[in-house]
Each structure stands twice: as structure tokens, then as C-alpha cells.
């Protein structure tokens, strides 16, 4: 099919729906992006400051005679680094607050039978309790869970010491962090400190501002996100591999379509239970539907896909298009990456947009507060709302038939299980990353790259993810992915067994032996903490630091502040990180040099920027080969 929209998205489901949206005069993210052009150069370069009421101030670089300092005297380095630091802090806050909610949910599961939550994975709970020095001998599992939850909650604001999960990092990494004074202490405190020091008249030293920001980012990756992931696994189960369907073709004409969109599995897990409630299914049938079809979007979709095989309807840029099908009876959202525009789109159809979190309300949406204390009950109320809306569907329904299949569910535990299959029981230990280390050291695998992050109109939708992944696997580089990158990859078929045909001989061999696809879905954005742990394990096993490993990170289509926090903690953990979109820092040469160069000598990792996926792949591969040379492997 050829139409005007091919140049905006490389996904056929999308451009068919973009056509429909245009015919029905629905405005989408692409229209708004176009209307925004040209975007403001000051903001783009990070040179606009609104941190006090003397402002706004801007630094003019294009002409000699424009202002070179803000009214308070802040120069371009100060302003750009303060803006970046605040973004990083916002991203860290988002992930960390998510982690906090999971910890609360675990606490309710332990203390409050009304909640409907139950601790699923006792083994992981007990091992975390032991890691944290919590008494497990002869203890009731509920008490252990409550103590783990409380200890996790204390990580957010404890007065002394450092984050507990830091201990999981390789020794050399911890030394670097200590030396640089970026070892995170308490999650909220580290974030607050960024806000404090970027207040007018506080920190003006861009390097020092970045130190504070890096600490806040590390408190995300090794704190908030890691708590979110670990406790989610304990509460809802550790993901295991299974095959699922993805893309907007998973919507069903004859069933109640409930799209769950947002981030926190506390809500999606409860909704999942509710949609399986016989009474509600019966009710759906009474309304003339065949059943209730739950599908996921963005990270909360990743969470339930990983754990329960719920179809992945679409990523960030597909949220409006899902409604444009006319077949979504309710879009239930919680927090993060939910476009306020949704309420406008939903108005044009029968779709009910239901917000559930007091942290994220949208004018025009229906707000039905979700309470963790009585999770299942609130979920049932929400599902009922969706079911009752089925009969209000209007004529113009179009569900594109595009969908593809792929394997998801690659938690570290699942990866180690898979690796055990290629060990020799008389020659090798089981339960370690040795086979992965051997595959890398022998050169069969050249390295591994994490492709993560969002969608952004500055990059052709999904192409940044998909083309980069294809180039890498062709060159025997294993790809792991999370977030909206994972959607792009599964939709493009890269998580299927057939994708082995796109791999170099080395990776194809590994995939066949281990029985995995060449692109491994490791979960949601907070699940990038899984990748940190996998890298730590690998580094410890190989007796090196993370910075020595032939690995890289990439965020080809990133857009959110969370992505900035992720990129920053990944770099500070020692990983070379490729961005497909330039961050708003280019107005400060010093800050730009710091991020793309100076940090390399300090942390080992650094940022690189390349929007062309083929070029990005080349750079990443050459970085990987360089690391191999240094290790002489």
C-alpha cells in the first residue's frame, strides 16, 4: 500500500489508521508535530531558563550581540546543565515513584487480604529478604513480604547510608562511584538534591550539577527501577518465555476491547484478574460481545505480556491510532506517557478514556480511582465500565489486520534457565552466565546491545529501533530490548524464530542452541534494571568491570525524561550509549563535550548521537570490537 503516511511510520497498521484519522479529521501526534515546526532553537539547545521570575532568560549564540548570561548571571553551561539535571531528576522520579507503588502493593498483599494481591514468587522474596538481612527463619511468608516491602520503602528516604542494591554492582564500579561521590543514598533525597541545587543562585558549576544528576539517575537504575522490577516479580511472578501476538491487529471486532495503557503492573494485574471474572464475562455476553479482550500498550502492556502473554497492541505513537480503529471500548490508563490528546480523540468515538491514578488526571477523561487496598474490586468497577460501553460502538470500525508473533518473557532468570540448556552437566556449573560469557569470549557472539526507549516524531516511527536491531543481529550482536523499542521489534518479527534467518552465523547458532529469538524482550522501562544486573553478573563472571564488556546501549527514538535518566545511569554504569535524537544540551559546548567525551574517562561509558540507524550500528559495532581488542578476545 502506498500513501502519504509511509514516510511517517514504517508500520502498515499505522499508516492505514493515519489515513482513517485524516479522513475523520482526527488530529494525531504527527499533525501536532508538524504544526510545531520550526521548534524553538533556544529550547532545542537547552539555553532557555525559567527557573525564577526574573526570567525567562535565554542565551543567544547565533549573533555576537545577544545576551550571553541570564539575569542572575548563569551562563550557557549552567543553564543547559540545570535543565538537563532537572529532566533527569524528573525521569528518576517517575520510575522511582512507580517502584514505591509496587512496594506499597507488596505491603498490602502481605497485610491486607482485601487487596486481592498475593505474593506469587516466594523463592525470589526469600532470596531478596536474605540479601537485605531480613529474618526468614521460621517466619510467616506474609511477614517476610511486609518486611521486604517496608525495607524497600525505606530506601526512598532513609537518613543514612547508601542504597542496598548498589552492593550488586561489580567492585570496580562501586569504587568509581564512591570516588566520584555519586553513590546513591536515598532515592527521594538524591532527586530532591537536584531540584535544590538547580534553584536560582545555587549550583552554577556544570560538572557539579551533572554529578548530582548522575547520582539521581543511579538512584533510579539501581534504586527505584530495580525495586520496581524485583518487587513486581515477587508479587506477580518472574517472567518466563512464551509466544504472543503484537500490533493493533490484536483488537477484536466482536469482543469488548479494553486497552490498558501506562506503566504500573499493580493496575494491569488487577485488571487482568477482573477481565477473567465469570460475572463480567457473562455481562459482556449480555451486551452482545463474545468476550472481553484485554490488550496492552506501552510499558504496562510490556509487563502483562511478559508475565501473562497478553497481546501487545502498540507503542507510544500508536495510542491515538488504537482509538481511531473505533473498536476500543475503554482505554484504561494510570501514569506516564499517556498523551493528554487521548481525551480529544476518544471524544470522537465511543471510547471511554478512564484515568485511575491521582497522579495523572486528564481533563475530559473519566476518573475512576484505583486503590491498591482493594485492587480487584476497583479493577472490576473499571472493567464493568468498559463492558457496558460495548453497545455504544458506532459504525465506522476498522481494525487493521496487521499483527505478528514473537517470544517474550526473558527475565534474567529465564535467560539463565535457557543458558543452562547449553551447559554440559559433567563439565560445567549450572545456573550461571558462563555460556553467555563463553559465547562472547570465543567470538561466536561479538557482543550485546540493549535497544530501549520511546518513539519520537524526529525519527521515522519504529524504524530507528528496527533497522538498528537488524544491522546488529546481522553482525552477530545479540539484542535485548525493553519499552517501546520492544514493541517495534516484535511487530517487525524480530522476536520470532524465523528472525534467525536475519542473523549472522554466530548469533543464529546461539539462537538455535539456546532456543531463543535474536532479540530478547526483557520487559518494561523499569526492567532495564534487569539489564544492569545481567551486565553485573557477566562482568563479575569475567572478572572485569561493566565498562570492559563488549556491550552498548541505544535509545534510537527516545523522547521522555525517563529515557534521559536511563541513559544517564547506563552511561554512569559504564556503558557506551547511542542516542538517535540529540538531547537539548547542544547550546553548551562544555556540557556536550562532558557527556560525549569527558565522562568516558570517568565512568567508561559515554553518550554518542547518531540518527541514521545504519551509521549508529557501525559506530556501536566498532565500539564493541574495540572493547574486544582491549580484552584480547
Amino acid at each position: 500500500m502506498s500513501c502519504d503516511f509511509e514516510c511517517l511510520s514504517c508500520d502498515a497498521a499505522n499508516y492505514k489508521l493515519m489515513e482513517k484519522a485524516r479522513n475523520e479529521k482526527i488530529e494525531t501526534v504527527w499533525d501536532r508535530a508538524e504544526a510545531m515546526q520550526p521548534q524553538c532553537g533556544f529550547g532545542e539547545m537547552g539555553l532557555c531558563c525559567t527557573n525564577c521570575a526574573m526570567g525567562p532568560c535565554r542565551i543567544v549564540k547565533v549573533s555576537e550581540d545577544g545576551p550571553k548570561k541570564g539575569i542572575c548571571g548563569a551562563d550557557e553551561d549552567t543553564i543547559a546543565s540545570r535543565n538537563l539535571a532537572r529532566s533527569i531528576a524528573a525521569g528518576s522520579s517517575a520510575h522511582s515513584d512507580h517502584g514505591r507503588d509496587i512496594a506499597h502493593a507488596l505491603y498490602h498483599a502481605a497485610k491486607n487480604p482485601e487487596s486481592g494481591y498475593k505474593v506469587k514468587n516466594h523463592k525470589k522474596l526469600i532470596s531478596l529478604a536474605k540479601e537485605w538481612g531480613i529474618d526468614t527463619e521460621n517466619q510467616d511468608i506474609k511477614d517476610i513480604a511486609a518486611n521486604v516491602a517496608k525495607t524497600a520503602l525505606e530506601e526512598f528516604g532513609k537518613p543514612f547510608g547508601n542504597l542496598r542494591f548498589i552492593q550488586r554492582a561489580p567492585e570496580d564500579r562501586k569504587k568509581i562511584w564512591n570516588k566520584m561521590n555519586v553513590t546513591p543514598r536515598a532515592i527521594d533525597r538524591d532527586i530532591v538534591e537536584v531540584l535544590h541545587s538547580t534553584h536560582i543562585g545555587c549550583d552554577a558549576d556544570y560538572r557539579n550539577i551533572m554529578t548530582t544528576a548522575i547520582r539521581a539517575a543511579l538512584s533510579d537504575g539501581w534504586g527505584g527501577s530495580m525495586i520496581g522490577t524485583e518487587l513486581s516479580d515477587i508479587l506477580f511472578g518472574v517472567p518466563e518465555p512464551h509466544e504472543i501476538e503484537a500490533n493493533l491487529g490484536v483488537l477484536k471486532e466482536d469482543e469488548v476491547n479494553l486497552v490498558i495503557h501506562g506503566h504500573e503492573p499493580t493496575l494491569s494485574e488487577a485488571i487482568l484478574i477482573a477481565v477473567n471474572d465469570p460475572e463480567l464475562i457473562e455481562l459482556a455476553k449480555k451486551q452482545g460481545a463474545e468476550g472481553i479482550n484485554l490488550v496492552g500498550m506501552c510499558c504496562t502492556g510490556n509487563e502483562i505480556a511478559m508475565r501473562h502473554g497478553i497481546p501487545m497492541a502498540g507503542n507510544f505513537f500508536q495510542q491515538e491510532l488504537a482509538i481511531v480503529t473505533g473498536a476500543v471500548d475503554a482505554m484504561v490508563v494510570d501514569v506516564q506517557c499517556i498523551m493528554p490528546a487521548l481525551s480529544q480523540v476518544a471524544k470522537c468515538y465511543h471510547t471511554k478514556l478512564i484515568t485511575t491514578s491521582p497522579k495523572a488526571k486528564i481533563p475530559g477523561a473519566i476518573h475512576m480511582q484505583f486503590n491498591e487496598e482493594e485492587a480487584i474490586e476497583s479493577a472490576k468497577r473499571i472493567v464493568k465500565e468498559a463492558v457496558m460501553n460495548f453497545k455504544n460502538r458506532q459504525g465506522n470500525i476498522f481494525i487493521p489486520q496487521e499483527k505478528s508473533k514473537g517470544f517474550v518473557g526473558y527475565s534474567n532468570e529465564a535467560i539463565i534457565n535457557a543458558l543452562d540448556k547449553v551447559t554440559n552437566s559433567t563439565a560445567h556449573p549450572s545456573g550461571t552466565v558462563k555460556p553467555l560469557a563463553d559465547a562472547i569470549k570465543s567470538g561466536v557472539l561479538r557482543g550485546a546491545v540493549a535497544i530501549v526507549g520511546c518513539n519520537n516524531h524526529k525519527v521515522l516511527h519504529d524504524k530507528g529501533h528496527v533497522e538498528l536491531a537488524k544491522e546488529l543481529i546481522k553482525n552477530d550482536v545479540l539484542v535485548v530490548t525493553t519499552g517501546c523499542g520492544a514493541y517495534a521489534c516484535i511487530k517487525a518479527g524480530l522476536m520470532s524464530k524465523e528472525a534467525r534467518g536475519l542473523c549472522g552465523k554466530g548469533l543464529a547458532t546461539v539462537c538455535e542452541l539456546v532456543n531463543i529469538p535474536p532479540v530478547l524482550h526483557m520487559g518494561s522501562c523499569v526492567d532495564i534494571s534487569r539489564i544492569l544486573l545481567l551486565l553485573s553478573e557477566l562482568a563479575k563472571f569475567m572478572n572485569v568491570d561493566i565498562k570492559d564488556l563488549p556491550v552498548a546501549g541505544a535509545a534510537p527514538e527516545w523522547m521522555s525524561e525517563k529515557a534521559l535518566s536511563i541513559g544517564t545511569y547506563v552511561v554512569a554504569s559504564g556503558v557506551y550509549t547511542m542516542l538517535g535524537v540529540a538531547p537539548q544540551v547542544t547550546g553548551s559546548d562544555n556540557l556536550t563535550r562532558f557527556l560525549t567525551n569527558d565522562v568516558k574517562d570517568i565512568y567508561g561509558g559515554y553518550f554518542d548521537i547518531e540518527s541514521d540507524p545504519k551509521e549508529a550500528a557501525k559506530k556501536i559495532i566498532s565500539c564493541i570490537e574495540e572493547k574486544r581488542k582491549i580484552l584480547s578476545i
Partner: protein
Amino acid sequence: MTLFDIIFTGSEQALEACKSVLEQTIKEYGENEKVSFPNTAYSLPTIYAATGQKINTLADLKGAIGVIESLIVKEQNLEKALNAGLATAVAAEVIEACKYVGGKNPYEEPCVGFIPDTVIRSLGVPLVTGDIPGVAVVIGEAPTAEDAAKVIKDYQSKGILVTLVGKIIDQAIESKVKMGLEFRVVPLGYDVTSVTHIVSFAIRAALIFGNIKPGDLPELLKYTKERVPAFVNALGPLSELVVSAGAGAIALGFPVITDQDVQEVPMNLIVQKDYDKLVQTSLEARGIKIKITEIPIPVGFAPAFEGERVRKDE
């Protein structure tokens, strides 16, 4: 040196050796001299199976050098490394073929050298039925003759066909291992290159029983991997040449298990230093399950002894 570099180095050494042996042979016999292995319809089986071309004369053999050269591309990836391993296998076949030029029989007791087609045909049935559950290629030298005997006899008792290359042959003789096809212990030769005779065994099995078309290399490699249950035990110090020959084995789908420190490759190149576990490790690596449970009687009780006649002095 990276594992792949070791393989490339070994393959280049094989290529050099092959060139000089061929040059020497041509000097002696002239380009038009015939080249063939005895009692085979498959010319030089490795080259024939890989390229579809039959080699008749030394002049033809010069053409094979180009094949070897084209297989050695020193890029750091598995595909190129496995190709380099195949290059070593082809080079070894050329060197071995030169030994037979002029109608000579270069091998003498106990070594058998080239294995004739009739033997392969007769072993085909027991291989298919699983009466011969596997083919062990033991190369090099065990730390002691006892270790060697222990490993060989263990395979023998399981009905596995054992082929020997290198000093291990002497160790087997020293510990009075019964040898010969009827005992399923077959010493090939002392030079590393004589390993080619078991490679050509596997390849002809693919041509004969798998109906693989000569020249269809991918299908050939698929057949040997899936249907020929061979594996390699590389014992004692490993030269680059042996490692690159090992890569050739891996290309055919045969795992290599060694007692030396090398960089392991999951499922394909495995280190096992414990001689009591070597056999187990090898069988697991090749996915070989022994059909009959072992009967612990003092004399090895297995099909390998079927052909044995009890001599007077025993």
C-alpha cells in the same frame, strides 16, 4: 590471540603445508600424474562433496588450492572461522592424497589411513540402527597410557567406533587395547592430517546414505550434523593446526572435547580435564544415548567383541 585467530593461523599453516607438499609431489611425478584414494567412487571425497568436482590429476589438485584459499577469510566471526576449519580439512585431504600418489600405500599396520567405501557401506546399517551409537575421533596424546586405554575401552564397551590419530595409537598399543575394525578401534595414522580419513568417512556416509548432491555444502553439513553421531576428543597440547582442524569438525556438526585450556564454545568446544568424565561429557555433548544398559562383567561386553575369536593363549 583470539580463538578465531588461532583457527585462522592453523588454517594458514595447513594451506602452506599443503602447497609445499603438492609442489614437492608435482616435482617428483609431474602434473599429469593420477591422484586417487584406493577403493572409492568418490574421488577425493571432501573436495568432491564440497565442490562437486572430481580430482583426477595433480594438476586438478592445484585447483583445489584456490578452494582452500577462498575459505580462509580472516574476519572475526563464526561463519569465517568455520569456513577456515573446512579449509584445513580440505588441505589435509590434499596432503593425504599426495601420500597415495604413484600407487603407493603409505600406511602400514596398525594404521589404516584411507577407509574404503565398502567399510562405510557395511557400517552404515549399524550406524542407522544405533548399534554403533557414535563415532569417537581421538586425536593427540593422553597423559598416560592407562588414561588412554581407559577412555578407549569405555567407548569400546559402549559400542562406539573409536578412531585414533597421533601418539594415542602407541598408547593404545602399549596398554594392549585390541584394535581393528572388528573391535571398533581404528588407528588412522600418526600425522594430524590423517584425521581427514574419518572426515571423508562422514562425508561419504552423507553422500551414500543421505543422497546429498555433491557440491551442496549446506545440505552436506546439515546431514553430518544431524545424522552422523561423531565427536572429537583432542587430547594433549593443541597446536594451532589441531584447533583449526577442530573448527572443521565443528563445521560438520561434531563437538570437540579437549583436556586442554582453551576458550570454550557452548555445546561445541568443551573442556573436560577429568579423564573419568571425558566419555560422559563427550556423549552428552553429541547427544548420544546408549541403548543397552552396561552390564558390569569383567570382560568388555559389547558388540565390539562380536568378531573376536578367543585365541589359544588367552
